[in-house]
Protein backbone atom coordinates (compact mmCIF):
# COMPACT_ATOMS: atom_id res chain seq x y z
CA UNK A 1 0.00 0.00 0.00
CA UNK A 2 2.76 2.40 1.02
CA UNK A 3 4.76 1.66 -2.13
CA UNK A 4 1.64 2.26 -4.23
CA UNK A 5 1.19 5.66 -2.59
CA UNK A 6 4.75 6.57 -3.27
CA UNK A 7 4.64 5.71 -6.99
CA UNK A 8 1.41 7.68 -7.34
CA UNK A 9 3.00 10.64 -5.61
CA UNK A 10 6.00 10.42 -7.90
CA UNK A 11 3.74 10.15 -10.98
CA UNK A 12 1.74 13.17 -9.86
CA UNK A 13 4.87 15.21 -9.23
CA UNK A 14 6.35 14.38 -12.59
CA UNK A 15 3.20 14.40 -14.77
CA UNK A 16 0.83 16.78 -13.00
CA UNK A 17 0.59 18.98 -16.07
CA UNK A 18 -0.52 16.01 -18.17
CA UNK A 19 -3.14 15.12 -15.56
CA UNK A 20 -4.50 18.68 -15.64
CA UNK A 21 -5.06 18.30 -19.38
CA UNK A 22 -7.29 15.32 -18.61
CA UNK A 23 -9.53 17.22 -16.16
CA UNK A 24 -11.99 18.79 -18.62
CA UNK A 25 -12.36 15.64 -20.75
CA UNK A 26 -12.89 13.58 -17.59
CA UNK A 27 -15.54 16.04 -16.43
CA UNK A 28 -17.23 15.53 -19.79
CA UNK A 29 -17.22 11.76 -19.41
CA UNK A 30 -18.44 11.88 -15.80
CA UNK A 31 -21.24 14.38 -16.43
CA UNK A 32 -22.45 13.48 -19.91
CA UNK A 33 -21.68 9.76 -20.10
CA UNK A 34 -21.51 8.20 -16.64
CA UNK A 35 -24.09 10.35 -14.83
CA UNK A 36 -26.76 9.35 -17.40
CA UNK A 37 -25.81 5.70 -16.82
CA UNK A 38 -26.53 6.20 -13.13
CA UNK A 39 -29.53 8.29 -14.13
CA UNK A 40 -31.10 5.03 -15.31
CA UNK A 41 -31.83 4.46 -11.64
CA UNK A 42 -35.08 6.36 -12.25
CA UNK A 43 -36.25 3.14 -13.86
CA UNK A 44 -36.66 1.94 -10.25
CA UNK A 45 -37.50 5.27 -8.64
CA UNK A 46 -40.34 7.69 -9.01
CA UNK A 47 -39.20 10.72 -10.97
CA UNK A 48 -40.68 14.19 -10.75
CA UNK A 49 -39.98 16.65 -13.55
CA UNK A 50 -37.93 19.43 -12.04
CA UNK A 51 -36.85 17.22 -9.13
CA UNK A 52 -33.63 15.26 -8.65
CA UNK A 53 -32.38 13.58 -11.81
CA UNK A 54 -31.96 10.43 -9.74
CA UNK A 55 -35.62 10.33 -8.72
CA UNK A 56 -37.51 10.75 -5.44
CA UNK A 57 -38.46 7.36 -3.95
CA UNK A 58 -37.96 3.67 -4.65
CA UNK A 59 -40.76 1.88 -6.44
CA UNK A 60 -38.94 -1.39 -7.05
CA UNK A 61 -39.77 -3.21 -10.26
CA UNK A 62 -43.02 -1.38 -10.93
CA UNK A 63 -41.93 0.14 -14.23
CA UNK A 64 -40.19 -3.05 -15.34
CA UNK A 65 -43.39 -5.06 -14.76
CA UNK A 66 -45.32 -2.33 -16.49
CA UNK A 67 -43.51 -2.64 -19.79
CA UNK A 68 -43.23 -6.42 -19.60
CA UNK A 69 -47.03 -6.56 -19.50
CA UNK A 70 -47.46 -3.83 -22.12
CA UNK A 71 -48.53 -5.38 -25.47
CA UNK A 72 -47.23 -2.32 -27.37
CA UNK A 73 -43.81 -2.95 -25.89
CA UNK A 74 -43.72 -6.49 -27.29
CA UNK A 75 -44.85 -5.19 -30.66
CA UNK A 76 -42.04 -2.61 -30.82
CA UNK A 77 -39.61 -5.22 -29.49
CA UNK A 78 -40.47 -7.53 -32.40
CA UNK A 79 -40.22 -4.63 -34.86
CA UNK A 80 -36.77 -3.78 -33.49
CA UNK A 81 -35.55 -7.34 -33.98
CA UNK A 82 -36.99 -7.55 -37.50
CA UNK A 83 -35.64 -4.17 -38.66
CA UNK A 84 -32.28 -4.76 -36.95
CA UNK A 85 -32.06 -8.24 -38.47
CA UNK A 86 -32.96 -7.06 -41.98
CA UNK A 87 -30.49 -4.18 -41.76
CA UNK A 88 -27.73 -6.56 -40.70
CA UNK A 89 -28.70 -9.03 -43.41
CA UNK A 90 -28.29 -6.43 -46.17
CA UNK A 91 -25.95 -3.76 -44.83
CA UNK A 92 -23.31 -6.17 -43.59
CA UNK A 93 -22.59 -8.35 -46.68
CA UNK A 94 -23.27 -5.80 -49.45
CA UNK A 95 -20.19 -3.65 -48.73
CA UNK A 96 -18.05 -6.79 -49.05
CA UNK A 97 -19.57 -7.56 -52.45
CA UNK A 98 -19.18 -3.97 -53.62
CA UNK A 99 -15.58 -3.83 -52.38
CA UNK A 100 -14.75 -7.03 -54.30
CA UNK A 101 -16.32 -5.58 -57.45
CA UNK A 102 -14.51 -2.26 -57.07
CA UNK A 103 -11.28 -4.13 -56.48
CA UNK A 104 -11.56 -5.68 -59.94
CA UNK A 105 -11.53 -2.25 -61.61
CA UNK A 106 -8.07 -1.79 -63.02
CA UNK A 107 -8.34 1.82 -64.22
CA UNK A 108 -7.29 3.92 -61.25
CA UNK A 109 -9.17 7.10 -62.15
CA UNK A 110 -12.37 5.21 -62.83
CA UNK A 111 -12.00 3.40 -59.53
CA UNK A 112 -11.50 6.67 -57.68
CA UNK A 113 -14.57 8.16 -59.35
CA UNK A 114 -16.69 5.15 -58.40
CA UNK A 115 -15.48 5.37 -54.82
CA UNK A 116 -16.19 9.10 -54.58
CA UNK A 117 -19.74 8.62 -55.83
CA UNK A 118 -20.47 5.69 -53.57
CA UNK A 119 -19.17 7.48 -50.43
CA UNK A 120 -21.29 10.55 -51.06
CA UNK A 121 -24.56 9.56 -49.32
CA UNK A 122 -22.65 8.94 -46.10
CA UNK A 123 -22.07 12.69 -45.74
CA UNK A 124 -25.72 13.66 -45.83
CA UNK A 125 -27.78 14.52 -42.81
CA UNK A 126 -30.37 11.92 -41.90
CA UNK A 127 -32.96 14.68 -42.39
CA UNK A 128 -31.86 15.06 -46.00
CA UNK A 129 -32.00 11.31 -46.52
CA UNK A 130 -35.49 11.16 -45.06
CA UNK A 131 -36.56 14.05 -47.28
CA UNK A 132 -35.12 12.28 -50.34
CA UNK A 133 -36.96 9.10 -49.38
CA UNK A 134 -40.19 11.06 -49.14
CA UNK A 135 -39.67 12.63 -52.55
CA UNK A 136 -38.76 9.29 -54.16
CA UNK A 137 -41.80 7.52 -52.71
CA UNK A 138 -44.22 10.45 -53.12
CA UNK A 139 -47.40 9.98 -55.14
CA UNK A 140 -45.87 12.23 -57.82
CA UNK A 141 -42.36 10.77 -57.32
CA UNK A 142 -40.26 8.62 -59.65
CA UNK A 143 -41.35 5.24 -58.26
CA UNK A 144 -45.00 6.03 -58.75
CA UNK A 145 -44.21 7.44 -62.21
CA UNK A 146 -42.91 4.00 -63.14
CA UNK A 147 -45.98 2.33 -61.65
CA UNK A 148 -48.20 4.72 -63.58
CA UNK A 149 -46.44 3.99 -66.84
CA UNK A 150 -47.06 0.29 -66.18
CA UNK A 151 -50.74 1.09 -65.76
CA UNK A 152 -50.79 0.53 -62.01
CA UNK A 153 -52.45 2.66 -59.36
CA UNK A 154 -50.12 4.99 -57.41
CA UNK A 155 -49.16 3.76 -53.94
CA UNK A 156 -48.81 5.99 -50.89
CA UNK A 157 -45.76 4.02 -49.79
CA UNK A 158 -45.04 5.84 -46.54
CA UNK A 159 -48.55 5.27 -45.29
CA UNK A 160 -48.53 1.52 -45.85
CA UNK A 161 -47.22 -0.56 -42.93
CA UNK A 162 -46.25 -3.39 -45.31
CA UNK A 163 -43.85 -1.06 -47.18
CA UNK A 164 -42.09 0.46 -44.21
CA UNK A 165 -39.41 -2.21 -43.78
CA UNK A 166 -38.53 -2.21 -47.46
CA UNK A 167 -38.26 1.57 -47.55
CA UNK A 168 -36.20 1.76 -44.39
CA UNK A 169 -33.76 -0.99 -45.33
CA UNK A 170 -33.39 0.33 -48.91
CA UNK A 171 -32.53 3.79 -47.64
CA UNK A 172 -30.01 2.30 -45.21
CA UNK A 173 -28.42 0.36 -48.06
CA UNK A 174 -28.36 3.49 -50.23
CA UNK A 175 -26.65 5.53 -47.53
CA UNK A 176 -24.22 3.08 -45.94
CA UNK A 177 -23.03 0.48 -48.44
CA UNK A 178 -20.55 2.67 -50.35
CA UNK A 179 -18.90 4.04 -47.24
CA UNK A 180 -18.84 0.55 -45.77
CA UNK A 181 -16.41 -0.56 -48.48
CA UNK A 182 -13.55 1.64 -47.23
CA UNK A 183 -12.15 -0.73 -44.66
CA UNK A 184 -12.54 -3.74 -46.95
CA UNK A 185 -10.75 -1.97 -49.80
CA UNK A 186 -7.94 -1.13 -47.39
CA UNK A 187 -7.77 -4.75 -46.22
CA UNK A 188 -7.73 -5.94 -49.84
CA UNK A 189 -4.62 -3.90 -50.62
CA UNK A 190 -2.76 -5.53 -47.75
CA UNK A 191 -3.20 -9.07 -49.09
CA UNK A 192 0.18 -10.40 -50.21
CA UNK A 193 0.38 -10.61 -54.02
CA UNK A 194 2.48 -13.78 -53.62
CA UNK A 195 -0.52 -15.63 -52.23
CA UNK A 196 -2.36 -15.02 -55.51
CA UNK A 197 0.67 -16.12 -57.51
CA UNK A 198 0.95 -19.30 -55.47
CA UNK A 199 -2.74 -19.97 -56.01
CA UNK A 200 -2.35 -19.44 -59.77
CA UNK A 201 0.61 -21.83 -59.79
CA UNK A 202 -1.69 -24.41 -58.25
CA UNK A 203 -4.12 -23.77 -61.08
CA UNK A 204 -6.75 -21.97 -59.04
CA UNK A 205 -9.38 -20.12 -61.07
CA UNK A 206 -10.35 -16.53 -60.22
CA UNK A 207 -13.31 -17.73 -58.21
CA UNK A 208 -11.13 -20.09 -56.24
CA UNK A 209 -8.60 -17.31 -55.68
CA UNK A 210 -11.35 -15.14 -54.25
CA UNK A 211 -12.58 -18.00 -52.08
CA UNK A 212 -9.21 -19.15 -50.79
CA UNK A 213 -7.13 -15.94 -50.75
CA UNK A 214 -9.29 -12.81 -50.86
CA UNK A 215 -12.04 -13.76 -48.42
CA UNK A 216 -9.69 -15.11 -45.72
CA UNK A 217 -7.67 -11.90 -46.18
CA UNK A 218 -10.59 -9.66 -45.25
CA UNK A 219 -11.99 -11.94 -42.57
CA UNK A 220 -10.58 -10.02 -39.57
CA UNK A 221 -12.11 -6.79 -40.91
CA UNK A 222 -15.43 -8.51 -41.52
CA UNK A 223 -15.53 -10.01 -38.04
CA UNK A 224 -14.70 -6.69 -36.38
CA UNK A 225 -17.41 -4.88 -38.34
CA UNK A 226 -19.86 -7.66 -37.58
CA UNK A 227 -19.28 -7.25 -33.84
CA UNK A 228 -19.71 -3.48 -34.12
CA UNK A 229 -22.91 -3.95 -36.15
CA UNK A 230 -24.32 -6.33 -33.58
CA UNK A 231 -23.52 -3.77 -30.88
CA UNK A 232 -25.79 -1.22 -32.56
CA UNK A 233 -28.43 -3.82 -33.45
CA UNK A 234 -30.93 -2.69 -30.80
CA UNK A 235 -30.51 1.01 -31.53
CA UNK A 236 -31.67 0.59 -35.19
CA UNK A 237 -31.63 3.93 -37.02
CA UNK A 238 -33.68 5.72 -34.38
CA UNK A 239 -33.43 9.17 -35.97
CA UNK A 240 -34.33 7.97 -39.44
CA UNK A 241 -37.33 6.00 -38.20
CA UNK A 242 -38.47 9.00 -36.18
CA UNK A 243 -38.41 11.05 -39.39
CA UNK A 244 -40.04 8.46 -41.63
CA UNK A 245 -42.71 6.76 -39.57
CA UNK A 246 -46.20 7.97 -38.71
CA UNK A 247 -49.12 6.53 -36.77
CA UNK A 248 -50.23 4.58 -39.86
CA UNK A 249 -46.92 2.72 -40.03
CA UNK A 250 -46.50 2.11 -36.28
CA UNK A 251 -47.47 -1.58 -36.71
CA UNK A 252 -44.16 -2.24 -38.52
CA UNK A 253 -42.13 0.95 -38.08
CA UNK A 254 -42.33 1.67 -34.37
CA UNK A 255 -39.22 0.40 -32.55
CA UNK A 256 -38.10 0.39 -28.93
CA UNK A 257 -36.19 3.67 -29.19
CA UNK A 258 -39.01 5.57 -30.89
CA UNK A 259 -41.56 4.15 -28.46
CA UNK A 260 -39.55 5.23 -25.45
CA UNK A 261 -39.03 8.64 -27.06
CA UNK A 262 -42.79 9.12 -27.28
CA UNK A 263 -43.35 7.73 -23.80
CA UNK A 264 -40.61 9.80 -22.18
CA UNK A 265 -40.11 13.05 -24.04
CA UNK A 266 -43.57 13.54 -25.49
CA UNK A 267 -45.73 12.05 -22.71
CA UNK A 268 -43.39 12.75 -19.77
CA UNK A 269 -43.48 9.17 -18.42
CA UNK A 270 -39.77 9.45 -17.72
CA UNK A 271 -39.41 6.51 -15.35
CA UNK A 272 -41.34 4.17 -17.61
CA UNK A 273 -39.31 5.22 -20.65
CA UNK A 274 -36.05 4.94 -18.71
CA UNK A 275 -36.95 1.37 -17.74
CA UNK A 276 -37.42 0.48 -21.41
CA UNK A 277 -34.21 2.31 -22.35
CA UNK A 278 -32.25 0.44 -19.70
CA UNK A 279 -33.57 -2.84 -21.01
CA UNK A 280 -32.56 -1.87 -24.55
CA UNK A 281 -29.05 -0.83 -23.49
CA UNK A 282 -28.52 -4.02 -21.47
CA UNK A 283 -29.63 -6.23 -24.36
CA UNK A 284 -27.22 -4.29 -26.60
CA UNK A 285 -24.38 -4.79 -24.12
CA UNK A 286 -25.07 -8.52 -23.82
CA UNK A 287 -25.20 -8.84 -27.63
CA UNK A 288 -21.87 -7.11 -28.24
CA UNK A 289 -20.08 -8.92 -25.42
CA UNK A 290 -21.31 -12.33 -26.53
CA UNK A 291 -20.52 -11.59 -30.20
CA UNK A 292 -17.02 -10.69 -29.07
CA UNK A 293 -16.61 -13.88 -27.03
CA UNK A 294 -18.00 -16.09 -29.78
CA UNK A 295 -15.75 -14.61 -32.44
CA UNK A 296 -12.70 -14.91 -30.20
CA UNK A 297 -13.45 -18.58 -29.57
CA UNK A 298 -14.33 -19.48 -33.16
CA UNK A 299 -12.29 -17.30 -35.51
CA UNK A 300 -9.72 -15.85 -33.13
CA UNK A 301 -10.53 -12.20 -33.84
CA UNK A 302 -12.05 -9.93 -31.23
CA UNK A 303 -12.39 -6.28 -30.31
CA UNK A 304 -10.85 -6.66 -26.85
Amino acid at each position, binding site marked *: MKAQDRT*WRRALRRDWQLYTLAILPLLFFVIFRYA*PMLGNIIAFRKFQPGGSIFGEEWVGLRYINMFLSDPTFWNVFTNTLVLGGLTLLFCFPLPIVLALLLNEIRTRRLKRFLQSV*SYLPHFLSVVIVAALVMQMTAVD*GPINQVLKSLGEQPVTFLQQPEWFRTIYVSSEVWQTVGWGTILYLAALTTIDEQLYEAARMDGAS*RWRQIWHVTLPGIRPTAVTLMILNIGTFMAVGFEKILLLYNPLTYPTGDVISTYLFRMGVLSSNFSYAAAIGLFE*ALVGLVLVVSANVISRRTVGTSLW
Partner: protein
Amino acid sequence: MVTVGTSRGYRVFQAVNAVILTGVVAVTLYPFFNILARSFSEETFIRAGEVNLIPRGFNLTTYEIVASDPMFWRNYGNTVYYTVVATLVAIILTTCYAYVLSKKHLKGRTALIWIAVFTMIFSGGLIPNYVLVTSLGLRNSVWAIALPNAISVFNLLVMKAFFESLPRDLEEAAAIDGLNTYGILWRIVMPLSKAVVATMVLFYAVSFWNSWFSAFLYMNESELFPVTVYLRNFIAGATGVENAGAVAGELTQAAANIQSVTIVLTVIPILAVYPFVQRYFVSGVMLGAVKG
Protein backbone atom coordinates in the same frame (compact mmCIF):
# COMPACT_ATOMS: atom_id res chain seq x y z
CA MET B 1 -1.46 -20.06 -66.64
CA VAL B 2 -0.84 -16.49 -67.71
CA THR B 3 -4.00 -16.62 -69.76
CA VAL B 4 -6.19 -16.74 -66.63
CA GLY B 5 -6.24 -12.94 -66.43
CA THR B 6 -7.55 -12.49 -69.96
CA SER B 7 -9.70 -15.58 -70.36
CA ARG B 8 -13.13 -15.31 -71.91
CA GLY B 9 -14.83 -15.91 -68.58
CA TYR B 10 -12.93 -13.03 -67.08
CA ARG B 11 -13.89 -10.68 -69.90
CA VAL B 12 -17.53 -11.58 -69.38
CA PHE B 13 -17.08 -10.90 -65.70
CA GLN B 14 -15.54 -7.50 -66.44
CA ALA B 15 -18.51 -6.59 -68.61
CA VAL B 16 -21.02 -7.69 -65.97
CA ASN B 17 -19.05 -5.82 -63.33
CA ALA B 18 -19.13 -2.64 -65.40
CA VAL B 19 -22.89 -2.93 -65.76
CA ILE B 20 -23.40 -3.49 -62.02
CA LEU B 21 -21.17 -0.60 -61.01
CA THR B 22 -22.81 1.73 -63.50
CA GLY B 23 -26.09 0.75 -61.90
CA VAL B 24 -24.71 1.56 -58.45
CA VAL B 25 -23.62 5.01 -59.64
CA ALA B 26 -26.99 5.65 -61.26
CA VAL B 27 -28.95 4.62 -58.17
CA THR B 28 -26.70 6.69 -55.92
CA LEU B 29 -26.92 9.87 -57.97
CA TYR B 30 -30.49 9.63 -59.25
CA PRO B 31 -32.19 11.15 -56.18
CA PHE B 32 -29.94 14.22 -56.34
CA PHE B 33 -30.74 14.95 -59.98
CA ASN B 34 -34.41 14.29 -59.43
CA ILE B 35 -34.54 16.79 -56.55
CA LEU B 36 -32.60 19.33 -58.59
CA ALA B 37 -35.04 18.98 -61.48
CA ARG B 38 -38.04 19.31 -59.16
CA SER B 39 -36.63 22.40 -57.50
CA PHE B 40 -36.62 24.26 -60.85
CA SER B 41 -39.98 22.96 -62.02
CA GLU B 42 -43.47 24.33 -61.97
CA GLU B 43 -45.82 22.97 -59.36
CA THR B 44 -48.38 21.68 -61.88
CA PHE B 45 -45.84 19.45 -63.60
CA ILE B 46 -44.63 18.09 -60.28
CA ARG B 47 -48.18 17.35 -59.14
CA ALA B 48 -48.83 15.54 -62.38
CA GLY B 49 -45.78 13.36 -61.76
CA GLU B 50 -44.05 14.54 -64.92
CA VAL B 51 -40.74 15.72 -63.51
CA ASN B 52 -37.92 13.23 -63.65
CA LEU B 53 -34.40 14.29 -64.56
CA ILE B 54 -35.16 17.45 -66.54
CA PRO B 55 -37.02 20.46 -65.07
CA ARG B 56 -40.47 21.10 -66.56
CA GLY B 57 -41.71 24.68 -66.76
CA PHE B 58 -38.33 26.00 -65.66
CA ASN B 59 -38.60 28.79 -63.09
CA LEU B 60 -36.83 30.23 -60.06
CA THR B 61 -39.96 31.23 -58.15
CA THR B 62 -39.52 28.61 -55.45
CA TYR B 63 -35.93 29.65 -54.86
CA GLU B 64 -37.14 33.23 -54.44
CA ILE B 65 -39.81 32.11 -51.98
CA VAL B 66 -37.36 30.18 -49.83
CA ALA B 67 -34.65 32.85 -50.12
CA SER B 68 -37.07 35.54 -49.00
CA ASP B 69 -38.02 33.64 -45.85
CA PRO B 70 -35.99 35.31 -43.09
CA MET B 71 -36.44 32.22 -40.90
CA PHE B 72 -34.61 30.07 -43.43
CA TRP B 73 -31.54 32.32 -43.32
CA ARG B 74 -31.78 32.72 -39.60
CA ASN B 75 -31.75 28.93 -39.18
CA TYR B 76 -28.97 28.58 -41.71
CA GLY B 77 -26.96 31.05 -39.64
CA ASN B 78 -27.72 29.01 -36.51
CA THR B 79 -26.34 25.92 -38.20
CA VAL B 80 -23.09 27.74 -38.92
CA TYR B 81 -22.90 29.10 -35.38
CA TYR B 82 -23.64 25.76 -33.69
CA THR B 83 -21.19 23.96 -35.94
CA VAL B 84 -18.36 26.39 -35.21
CA VAL B 85 -18.85 26.46 -31.43
CA ALA B 86 -19.43 22.72 -31.04
CA THR B 87 -16.48 21.82 -33.27
CA LEU B 88 -14.19 24.15 -31.35
CA VAL B 89 -15.19 22.65 -27.99
CA ALA B 90 -14.90 19.13 -29.37
CA ILE B 91 -11.49 19.64 -30.91
CA ILE B 92 -10.03 21.16 -27.72
CA LEU B 93 -11.32 18.40 -25.44
CA THR B 94 -10.45 15.60 -27.85
CA THR B 95 -6.92 16.88 -28.46
CA CYS B 96 -6.18 17.28 -24.75
CA TYR B 97 -7.43 13.83 -23.82
CA ALA B 98 -5.87 12.11 -26.84
CA TYR B 99 -2.51 13.67 -25.98
CA VAL B 100 -2.73 12.45 -22.39
CA LEU B 101 -3.72 8.94 -23.53
CA SER B 102 -0.81 8.82 -25.98
CA LYS B 103 1.73 9.01 -23.13
CA LYS B 104 2.54 5.36 -22.57
CA HIS B 105 4.50 5.94 -19.37
CA LEU B 106 1.60 7.72 -17.66
CA LYS B 107 0.35 6.06 -14.50
CA GLY B 108 -3.36 5.29 -14.66
CA ARG B 109 -3.36 5.46 -18.47
CA THR B 110 -5.18 2.14 -18.91
CA ALA B 111 -7.97 3.31 -16.63
CA LEU B 112 -8.24 6.60 -18.51
CA ILE B 113 -8.54 4.71 -21.80
CA TRP B 114 -11.22 2.39 -20.43
CA ILE B 115 -13.24 5.30 -19.09
CA ALA B 116 -13.55 6.43 -22.70
CA VAL B 117 -13.87 3.06 -24.45
CA PHE B 118 -16.55 1.70 -22.12
CA THR B 119 -18.90 4.49 -23.25
CA MET B 120 -18.71 3.00 -26.74
CA ILE B 121 -20.38 -0.23 -25.68
CA PHE B 122 -22.76 1.06 -23.02
CA SER B 123 -24.57 4.36 -22.87
CA GLY B 124 -27.02 5.97 -20.49
CA GLY B 125 -29.69 6.29 -23.13
CA LEU B 126 -32.03 8.97 -24.31
CA ILE B 127 -34.16 9.61 -21.23
CA PRO B 128 -31.44 10.12 -18.58
CA ASN B 129 -29.57 12.36 -21.04
CA TYR B 130 -32.69 14.38 -21.71
CA VAL B 131 -33.40 14.76 -18.00
CA LEU B 132 -29.77 15.73 -17.35
CA VAL B 133 -29.48 18.38 -20.06
CA THR B 134 -32.81 19.85 -19.04
CA SER B 135 -31.95 19.98 -15.34
CA LEU B 136 -28.55 21.55 -16.06
CA GLY B 137 -30.46 24.41 -17.66
CA LEU B 138 -28.79 23.98 -21.02
CA ARG B 139 -32.01 24.11 -23.03
CA ASN B 140 -32.24 26.76 -25.74
CA SER B 141 -28.50 27.33 -25.78
CA VAL B 142 -25.69 26.16 -28.02
CA TRP B 143 -24.31 24.18 -25.06
CA ALA B 144 -27.16 21.68 -25.28
CA ILE B 145 -25.72 20.74 -28.67
CA ALA B 146 -22.01 21.18 -28.01
CA LEU B 147 -21.44 19.72 -24.54
CA PRO B 148 -23.22 16.33 -24.64
CA ASN B 149 -21.38 15.45 -27.88
CA ALA B 150 -18.01 16.99 -27.05
CA ILE B 151 -15.91 13.85 -27.44
CA SER B 152 -16.44 11.13 -30.00
CA VAL B 153 -14.48 8.15 -28.75
CA PHE B 154 -13.77 7.04 -32.30
CA ASN B 155 -12.13 10.41 -33.10
CA LEU B 156 -10.32 10.27 -29.78
CA LEU B 157 -8.75 6.92 -30.66
CA VAL B 158 -7.75 8.17 -34.13
CA MET B 159 -5.96 11.13 -32.59
CA LYS B 160 -4.35 9.03 -29.89
CA ALA B 161 -2.99 6.65 -32.52
CA PHE B 162 -1.58 9.59 -34.44
CA PHE B 163 0.11 11.15 -31.39
CA GLU B 164 1.63 7.77 -30.51
CA SER B 165 3.21 7.61 -33.96
CA LEU B 166 5.04 10.93 -33.53
CA PRO B 167 8.78 10.71 -32.86
CA ARG B 168 9.44 11.23 -29.17
CA ASP B 169 12.87 12.85 -29.33
CA LEU B 170 11.47 16.20 -30.47
CA GLU B 171 9.30 16.44 -27.38
CA GLU B 172 12.16 15.29 -25.17
CA ALA B 173 14.47 17.92 -26.65
CA ALA B 174 11.81 20.59 -26.06
CA ALA B 175 11.44 19.45 -22.45
CA ILE B 176 15.18 19.77 -21.94
CA ASP B 177 14.96 23.28 -23.39
CA GLY B 178 12.60 24.06 -20.54
CA LEU B 179 9.22 23.92 -22.29
CA ASN B 180 6.43 22.65 -20.04
CA THR B 181 3.79 20.12 -21.11
CA TYR B 182 1.35 22.76 -22.37
CA GLY B 183 4.14 24.42 -24.36
CA ILE B 184 5.18 21.12 -25.89
CA LEU B 185 1.60 20.30 -26.89
CA TRP B 186 0.94 23.75 -28.34
CA ARG B 187 4.27 24.57 -29.99
CA ILE B 188 5.76 21.20 -30.89
CA VAL B 189 2.99 18.61 -31.20
CA MET B 190 0.21 20.71 -32.76
CA PRO B 191 2.29 22.04 -35.67
CA LEU B 192 3.28 18.45 -36.46
CA SER B 193 -0.35 17.32 -36.31
CA LYS B 194 -1.98 19.75 -38.72
CA ALA B 195 -3.21 16.96 -40.99
CA VAL B 196 -4.87 14.94 -38.24
CA VAL B 197 -6.34 18.06 -36.61
CA ALA B 198 -7.79 19.08 -39.97
CA THR B 199 -9.30 15.62 -40.35
CA MET B 200 -10.83 15.79 -36.88
CA VAL B 201 -12.23 19.27 -37.52
CA LEU B 202 -13.90 17.88 -40.64
CA PHE B 203 -15.27 14.82 -38.85
CA TYR B 204 -16.80 16.94 -36.11
CA ALA B 205 -17.93 19.79 -38.35
CA VAL B 206 -19.82 17.48 -40.72
CA SER B 207 -21.48 15.63 -37.86
CA PHE B 208 -22.60 18.89 -36.19
CA TRP B 209 -23.65 20.42 -39.52
CA ASN B 210 -25.83 17.39 -40.19
CA SER B 211 -27.22 16.92 -36.71
CA TRP B 212 -30.81 17.80 -35.96
CA PHE B 213 -31.97 15.68 -33.04
CA SER B 214 -30.30 17.59 -30.17
CA ALA B 215 -31.65 20.85 -31.51
CA PHE B 216 -35.07 19.26 -32.04
CA LEU B 217 -35.06 18.05 -28.43
CA TYR B 218 -33.67 21.08 -26.66
CA MET B 219 -34.62 24.15 -28.69
CA ASN B 220 -38.10 25.51 -28.03
CA GLU B 221 -38.29 28.42 -30.46
CA SER B 222 -38.02 28.41 -34.21
CA GLU B 223 -35.52 31.31 -34.09
CA LEU B 224 -33.09 28.84 -32.49
CA PHE B 225 -33.49 25.94 -34.92
CA PRO B 226 -30.68 24.87 -37.22
CA VAL B 227 -31.57 24.44 -40.87
CA THR B 228 -31.90 20.67 -40.46
CA VAL B 229 -34.81 21.20 -38.07
CA TYR B 230 -36.28 23.76 -40.50
CA LEU B 231 -36.26 21.03 -43.14
CA ARG B 232 -37.57 18.37 -40.79
CA ASN B 233 -40.53 20.60 -39.93
CA PHE B 234 -41.29 20.77 -43.62
CA ILE B 235 -41.27 17.05 -44.11
CA ALA B 236 -43.23 16.56 -40.91
CA GLY B 237 -45.80 18.93 -42.41
CA ALA B 238 -45.40 21.24 -39.43
CA THR B 239 -45.06 24.99 -39.15
CA GLY B 240 -42.70 25.67 -42.05
CA VAL B 241 -45.24 25.66 -44.86
CA GLU B 242 -47.42 28.45 -43.48
CA ASN B 243 -44.34 30.50 -42.63
CA ALA B 244 -42.83 30.37 -46.06
CA GLY B 245 -46.20 30.75 -47.73
CA ALA B 246 -47.17 33.71 -45.60
CA VAL B 247 -43.92 35.49 -46.35
CA ALA B 248 -44.19 35.17 -50.10
CA GLY B 249 -47.93 35.07 -50.37
CA GLU B 250 -47.63 32.37 -53.00
CA LEU B 251 -49.27 29.27 -51.70
CA THR B 252 -49.53 27.63 -55.10
CA GLN B 253 -45.82 26.89 -55.20
CA ALA B 254 -46.41 24.75 -52.17
CA ALA B 255 -44.87 22.14 -49.95
CA ALA B 256 -43.23 19.56 -52.22
CA ASN B 257 -41.51 22.16 -54.31
CA ILE B 258 -40.30 24.24 -51.39
CA GLN B 259 -39.04 21.04 -49.85
CA SER B 260 -36.91 20.28 -52.92
CA VAL B 261 -35.43 23.77 -52.86
CA THR B 262 -34.65 23.52 -49.15
CA ILE B 263 -32.94 20.19 -49.72
CA VAL B 264 -30.86 21.63 -52.54
CA LEU B 265 -29.82 24.68 -50.53
CA THR B 266 -28.92 22.55 -47.50
CA VAL B 267 -26.92 20.02 -49.47
CA ILE B 268 -24.92 22.53 -51.54
CA PRO B 269 -22.27 23.34 -48.88
CA ILE B 270 -21.65 19.63 -48.29
CA LEU B 271 -21.37 18.93 -52.03
CA ALA B 272 -19.14 21.96 -52.52
CA VAL B 273 -16.51 20.84 -50.04
CA TYR B 274 -16.97 17.12 -50.59
CA PRO B 275 -14.45 16.58 -53.41
CA PHE B 276 -11.73 18.31 -51.39
CA VAL B 277 -12.33 16.74 -48.01
CA GLN B 278 -13.26 13.19 -48.96
CA ARG B 279 -9.70 11.87 -48.87
CA TYR B 280 -9.20 13.26 -45.34
CA PHE B 281 -12.18 11.26 -44.20
CA VAL B 282 -10.90 8.12 -45.83
CA SER B 283 -7.45 8.50 -44.27
CA GLY B 284 -9.04 9.28 -40.90
CA VAL B 285 -11.12 6.14 -40.99
CA MET B 286 -8.05 4.09 -41.92
CA LEU B 287 -6.08 5.57 -39.05
CA GLY B 288 -8.95 4.76 -36.72
CA ALA B 289 -9.26 1.23 -38.02
CA VAL B 290 -5.64 0.44 -37.24
CA LYS B 291 -6.17 1.20 -33.58
CA GLY B 292 -9.95 1.02 -33.24
